[in-house]
């Protein structure tokens, strides 16, 4: 396993016409169109995300990044319709293989969840049930979708545990979550998510609670599984290093909107949105040792007091008259879009000088 992301050479399992610049000759696996989310509160609807648009090609690995509170987790949850239906309102379309998940009946949605799209979470301990063995929980995920016997379910669970690199899977299968370490639990979650061979895996900060050495193991595992099985991956994280090493494309979100969408290598070298650039420049590894660190001044506006026009305006160093106009996503070059009308003229620093 190399640490280098390979965009150009598709591996055998991956579909041959992988888009080289995001223009896909084949229909996308997932197309999110104008997805807006709001939560009902005592003081009326609180808008959380606005007009989120993106597409995911089959087998593609996309990083969804941004600060806490920018709407990346709720976007991930909304793809599986895991938000509480009483309070969350979803507008827009979530087209998955042509089916609109946003309007699917709860019953048909259950058939998609786990089978077609699976999700893993940040804290594996709270996602696992402490009173069932991990084998039971993994085989349950399979037996919900496929009518197989208990014995076969167990065999499948053992195979899945082996697949994610757990030693002695026959024994581990009968253990309870508390008997496993954090990294092992996350492997169990991945085994559970992938047992039905879904076409899309949504991973929400899967390595944030883990040590760097274990994080490296898990990101390598996710990448190699995705390459081998052709499962597309949405990697929600705030760690740009993890995105660089795992994904081929990066979508940056800010204050509930997508502000930039670009191939990873391009965005790291030359970000087109001032916010993406700011995020990259804030990484301590990129400043001179013991020098002053760059940061983004100010803070994210609160959802009930969003400014009109560019939402990043109050923190942006490139702000001029005109930024108060509403900002559409504009295409800068093929496969690269940014929500900044100055993007074509600005030269912003990236991760490399």
């Amino acid at each position, binding site marked *: 396993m190399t640490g280098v992301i390979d965009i150009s050479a598709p591996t055998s399992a991956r579909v041959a016409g992988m888009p080289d610049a995001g223009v896909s000759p084949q229909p996308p696996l997932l197309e999110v169109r104008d997805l807006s989310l709001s939560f009902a509160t005592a003081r009326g609807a609180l808008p959380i995300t606005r007009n989120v648009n993106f597409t995911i090609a089959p087998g593609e690995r996309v990083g969804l990044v941004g600060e806490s509170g920018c709407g990346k987790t709720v976007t991930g949850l909304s793809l599986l319709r895991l938000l509480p239906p009483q309070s969350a309102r979803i507008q827009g379309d979530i087209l998955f293989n042509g089916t609109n998940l946003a309007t699917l009946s709860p019953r048909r949605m259950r058939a998609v969840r786990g089978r077609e799209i699976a999700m893993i979470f940040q804290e594996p301990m709270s996602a696992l049930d402490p009173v069932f063995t991990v084998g039971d929980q993994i085989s349950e995920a399979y037996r919900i979708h496929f009518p197989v016997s208990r014995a076969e379910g167990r065999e499948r669970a053992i195979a899945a545990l082996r697949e994610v690199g757990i030693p002695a899977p026959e024994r581990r299968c009968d253990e309870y979550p508390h008997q496993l*370490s954090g990294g092992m639990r996350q492997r169990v979650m991945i085994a559970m998510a992938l047992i039905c061979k879904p076409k899309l895996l949504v991973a929400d900060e899967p390595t944030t609670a883990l040590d760097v050495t274990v994080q*490296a193991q898990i990101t390598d595992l996710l990448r190699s599984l995705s390459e081998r099985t052709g499962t597309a991956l949405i990697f929600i994280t705030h760690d740009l290093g993890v995105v660089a090493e795992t994904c081929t494309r990066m979508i940056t979100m800010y204050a509930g909107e997508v502000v930039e969408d670009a191939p990873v290598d391009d965005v790291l070298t030359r970000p087109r949105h001032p916010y993406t650039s700011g995020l990259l420049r804030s990484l301590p590894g990129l400043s001179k*040792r013991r020098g002053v660190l760059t940061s*983004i001044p100010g*803070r994210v506006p609160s959802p009930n007091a969003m400014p009109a026009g560019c939402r990043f305006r109050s923190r942006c160093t490139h702000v001029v008259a005109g930024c108060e106009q509403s900002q559409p996503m504009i295409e800068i070059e093929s496969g690269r879009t940014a929500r900044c009308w100055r993007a074509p003229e600005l030269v912003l620093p990236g991760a490399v000088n």
Partner: protein
Amino acid sequence: MRDLRILFPTRDGRDTVKAIDGMDFEVCAGETFGIIGESGSGKTTLGRALVSLLPPSHGKILHDGTDPAALGISAFRKHRRDYQIIFQDPNAALNPRMTIIDSVVEPLEIMGEGDHASRHRRGIEVLERVGLAAEAADRYPHQLSGGQKQRVNIARVLTLRPKVIVCDEVVAALDVSIRGDVLNLFADLQREFGLTYVFITHDISVVSHISDRIAVTYLGKLMELGPAEDVVEHPLHPYTRALLSAEPVPLPSHLRVDRRIILEGEIPSPVAPPSGCRFRTRCPSVQPRCANEVPAWRDVKPGHRVACHFATADGPPPDNQKAQRAS
């Protein structure tokens, strides 16, 4: 040079969890001393012990020559104000029912310093120093952002004018965009007040940025200790090398060098640590000798110590697999 010495061999906790099992090192006045390691390596326990929140089971911690454990209660109370700690979670460290200014002046009240008005003045001064407007003083913690809360925690520690501040994962809970601000503040305050920091973190990029010297811990032991640049650029211990290589780098693929060493498995239990060298069960350069003999804590280069039988001044021993492939 007022040398702060901390000698710290063997601490056996309850159930003999060997959280810290024989460490000795010293932190010099005015420096930033970074401690890195995985979770379970004893970093936090060490931090707490340094400020006398946990008594050492064996060995001694000397603050500027005095052993705080040997002091009487009132002398100890006076003494410990010089040695403060800031914790990871800015929310948990503040009382949600106290206003910011009340939290900030509380340490002064406990020390019985000045009258109410002078304490209040001092509190406002310090809040301003850490970049919080005076309006923040009468707010409650839930009205502030994570970065602001961490500033409050820094402010309340500063009211006591300590000599040493132990920072336990102080920026881990903050977003990258504001991490820089808080780290810059730490650097400014150090210059201004001549503070000594012990920075405990698992974030290598943070520790290498701010530290003068770095110690690497693994399972309750020190693996390596040296000047920050040396440790990061030319690590001598196989564990340090692996830890550094695991750090994800946000660089485009053509600029990334693939020198990743993936460590197998996870940190063993501190209840029954491996014999000999503790890292041997995961070490890519392991030799038979590592199981039998505890490696000595030795100087390999001036000021650069390492606990590995095979490390030399040129670097860590070669990877077994690579060596095999080469031959």
